């Protein structure tokens, strides 16, 4: 770890911080420009109609309707950093608590799908890349094309139809059995309910990583060391293990860290179909129900995950590949 590498890391951190600030500003600006009336959203139209003008003026002052946007933003950001993200209008609870509960559900789902799609996509991509032009390659390519043109929500509907409604193998929604006390829910119940959503997410997540791995693998197969190994008579599994696998692993892993945003987007749709009470479903509910504090907080939390993933990808490159660690700063 030399000094340059540390500076590079610090630069990365600073950039993530700047980006997060920018995301919060953009989100705030978008929410600010929405036609949702803060008074009506918080008090309710009926209550607002029956109030006297003085009461309305008082409420306007309380919600800060007439303070300039910049001040509004600053006070919101200050509270946000302190951990006070406001009160969710839909759930009538502090946003932090809502997000905490939903995030736990979603993370469960997303990590599962992320790992499965990573392993499966890597295996498929590597197999296709090693056998470029052969039937395996064509099969994988066709599969990827099909999957990447299938909307995640339709795939979820399809699986729900087949496994939930027809075969009745899996429950058709929610993350726990209906009508059960919270204490009685076992881990097995949770897993059982997460199978279909996680399966959907894994299937859709495969295509990206598989195509990327395939491309890198083809590059590697064209390299001199690969040619030399083939000339020495190495083939099949040994060739893959010693020359292909080690070289293709790093780009694949970094891409997978950088693609967290897609898993996140997919989870929004999948959770909606399966009525899975996660962060994505909360985002949709917040958007439809004009729950601005919750929506803003979810955006920033998800951006945190995406930027975190990108940064891990950058750091991984540096840690594993000394050339980047030394040359990265200069480049």
């Amino acid at each position, binding site marked *: 770890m030399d000094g340059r590498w540390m500076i590079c890391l610090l630069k990365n951190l600073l950039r993530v911080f700047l980006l997060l600030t920018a*995301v919060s500003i953009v989100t705030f600006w*978008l929410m600010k420009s929405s036609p949702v009336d803060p008074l009506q959203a918080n008090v309710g139209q009926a209550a607002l109609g029956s109030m006297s003008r003085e009461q309305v003026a008082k409420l306007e002052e309380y919600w800060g309707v007439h303070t300039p946007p910049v001040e509004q933003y600053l006070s919101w950001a200050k509270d946000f950093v302190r951990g006070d993200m406001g009160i969710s209008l839909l759930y009538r609870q502090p946003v932090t608590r809502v997000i905490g509960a939903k995030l736990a559900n979603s993370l469960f789902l997303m990590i599962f799908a992320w790992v499965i799609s990573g392993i499966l996509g890597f295996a498929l991509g590597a197999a296709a890349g090693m056998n470029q032009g052969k039937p395996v390659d064509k099969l994988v390519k066709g599969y990827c094309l099909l999957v*990447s043109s*299938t909307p*995640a929500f339709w795939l979820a509907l*399809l699986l729900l139809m087949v496994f939930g409604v027809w075969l009745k193998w899996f429950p058709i929604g929610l993350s726990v059995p209906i009508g059960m006390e919270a204490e009685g829910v076992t881990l097995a119940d949770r897993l059982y309910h997460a199978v279909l959503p996680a399966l959907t997410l894994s299937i859709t997540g495969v295509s990206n990583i598989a195509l990327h791995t395939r491309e890198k693998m083809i590059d590697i197969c064209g390299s001199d060391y690969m040619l030399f190994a083939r000339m020495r008579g190495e083939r099949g599994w040994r060739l893959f293990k010693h020359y292909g696998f080690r070289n293709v692993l790093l780009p694949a892993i970094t891409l997978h860290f950088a693609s967290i945003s897609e898993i996140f987007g997919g989870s929004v749709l999948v959770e909606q179909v399966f009525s899975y009470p996660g962060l994505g479903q909360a985002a949709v509910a917040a*958007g439809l129900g004009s729950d601005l504090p919750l929506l803003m907080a979810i955006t920033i939390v*998800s951006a945190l995950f995406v930027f975190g993933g990108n940064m891990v990808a950058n750091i991984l490159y540096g840690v594993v590949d000394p050339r980047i660690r030394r040359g990265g700063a200069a480049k």
Partner: protein
Amino acid sequence: MKRLNRRQRVLLGLGVSVVFLILICVAGILSGEAARVTDFSRKNLAPCGKYIFGTDWLGRDMLARTLKGLSLSILIGILAAAVSAVIALVLGVASAVMGKWVDEAITFVIDLIMGIPHILLLILISVALGKGLKGVIVGVALSHWPSLARLIRAEVMQLKESPYIQIAEKLGKSRWYIARKHMLPHLLPQFLVGLVLLFPHAILHESSITFLGFGLSTEQPAIGIVLSEAMKYLITGKWWLALFPGILLVVIVVLFYVAGESLRKLLDPGSVHE
């Protein structure tokens, strides 16, 4: 029949996809009226000879509804892709030509937009514009350019190092002249391919966001709305409501991919061998 060579096969693929897409658009526009007609004497029919896609709980012909929805989605997708591609081209070239600061700023914005999950960004824009049709169109149109802009920027960066651009610079040509006379013609093929390959993304995102309930009203049967209505009736065993519209949607997206890839092979024959 004589075996076709690769160029002819590619042309055939391109032609078939384009014709099919135009057919769907025209059929959708023509079936606008049929998609709204309700008839309770024929509700909840499973697919049969007369109604190949079946009918829904109001007795509306699902085939007409699907076609209408798809044509709407295709039009929005084309509009969105065109707007996004132009933004990408302008920013990509500006980022590479106009000096370090502009480049830094544009890269920052690209990172920024890519940092928010796409669906979430669409929800945000839709809420900001009042959850109407406008929100969906503007959202889809304004959120697809970053990836293409990144590609174009990388390409321009590479171009700047090439001898003929360097010579043009040494000859004292202005940046604007070089961008217009030397870079744009070179970028055009990639721009066209990128434009076509933006369609599938735009359509998928458009259908996703309408599926979630943003934007279009139930009067306008966009494909996402057709599918989200189908979801409510799924439990009762009406599988055809979700199955056929979805399959057609997937076919459309695949066709756009095929068209884009064929175009790439035609414009850049070298890429076939990569």
